[in-house]
């Protein structure tokens, strides 16, 4: 019954192959098999969003995806968005506007926000709040998170305008 299967994942542009039980949750495959520890385990019950990654273009809670379902998928985690020496615009803005306190929710929050801005580059404050409603933050009260995302949106938009 506990037969392991071959799993192929492309994470942040890099191909990985490993053996795993089908029931393994994607979050644990990422963290424990591939040592990609940006996505966090908060609740493990699909509520907090700390484990959010992008899978085949969708924001998903990776604690609620079996690694078998993800076989063949393209996954982006916070590590794929920016690096310490080359921060993503959202990371810059979270830093600038104090969009984090303890930082536990931040990788999931930013990964979700990146997808939100891709789908809706010019969101209103209300749309940002609704768009991140699957991500819980116990520290900030959200105000500065929303500010950071709105500021990142306008920075991305002016960069786009300048490029045109």
């Amino acid at each position, binding site marked *: 019954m*506990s037969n392991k299967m071959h799993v192929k994942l492309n994470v942040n542009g890099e191909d990985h192959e490993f053996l795993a039980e089908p029931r393994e*949750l994607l979050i644990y495959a990422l963290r424990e098999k591939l040592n990609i520890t940006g996505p966090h385990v908060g609740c493990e019950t*699909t509520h907090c969003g700390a484990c959010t990654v992008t899978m085949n273009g969708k924001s998903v809670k990776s604690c609620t995806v079996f690694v078998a379902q993800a076989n063949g998928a393209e996954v982006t985690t916070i590590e794929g968005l920016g690096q310490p020496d080359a921060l993503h615009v959202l990371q810059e803005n979270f830093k600038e506007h104090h969009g984090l306190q303890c930082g536990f929710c931040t990788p999931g929050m930013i990964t979700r926000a990146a997808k939100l801005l891709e789908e809706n580059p010019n969101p209103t404050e209300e749309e940002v709040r609704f768009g991140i409603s699957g991500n819980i933050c116990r520290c900030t009260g959200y105000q500065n998170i929303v500010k950071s995302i709105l500021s990142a949106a306008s920075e991305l938009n002016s960069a786009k305008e300048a490029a045109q």
Partner: protein
Amino acid sequence: MIPAAFEYYRPASMEGVIALLEEHGDEARVIAGGHSLIPMMKLRMAEVAHLIDLQDIASLSGITIDSDGIRLGAMTTQHDIIGSAALTAAAPIIKEAALQIADPQVRYMGTVGGNVANGDPGNDMPGLMQCLDAQFHLLGPDGERVVAARDFYEAAYMTDREDEEVLVEITFAAPTGGYAYEKQKRKIGDYATAAAAVQMSKVDGKVATASIAMTNLSDTPIWSEETAEALIGTTCDDAAIKSAIAAMLGDIDPTEDNRGPIAFKCHAAGIVLGRAIKRAWSRA
């Protein structure tokens, strides 16, 4: 939160799915988005020895709208529904309801087929589909049969679907008139304390037709003919709405749980229905 081990299959055709279901009987289950099933498996409230993933079956997805009506493939996600301008133009109540289900991440994964096949009284789409008089198309070893949403639900997690049948699509006629999906929940991502789906049409200032279904107030969704009848022929004034609410309260059967005692649920049901009727009428 580790589920019991299972064998995993990802067939490329419906024949493959049905063959696996026939082979493994009630030890097998299909998985669509997994956002009802995986939480249950993690809690070990569901044990599935053979898990059949529907993600590669292309024929199960897609939204079609033509002169025959509207068709939603079972694997259409809540996110797809919200993003479909054509569906929103033809049946706006579906987007209004979908936006009140779970949260963005869950809506990328959760499918309409999983939502209605699951049989959880907390799911929002069964009541919605009863309100729209939708038809569920079930494919099994003996071919396809069609069951009305209004006849599909037997009790919590018990539906008319046989173990070796798969829900392949949902069809319904484009609704006319005004609509509203009103839901009371404790927070975003919560199931309904009470929810109401209302479609109604107006002729000469009076209610011509009405269809009303309530969610999470019994062990099945409740499509209440009496509630609709209390409105038909009236000008939808306060007295008519009051008698519709009274009729609805006679049809629901809520139980006490962590969303509140029975009296509170009845109160919430009355409030959401009153609001839904008023909003639907203002759009009729």
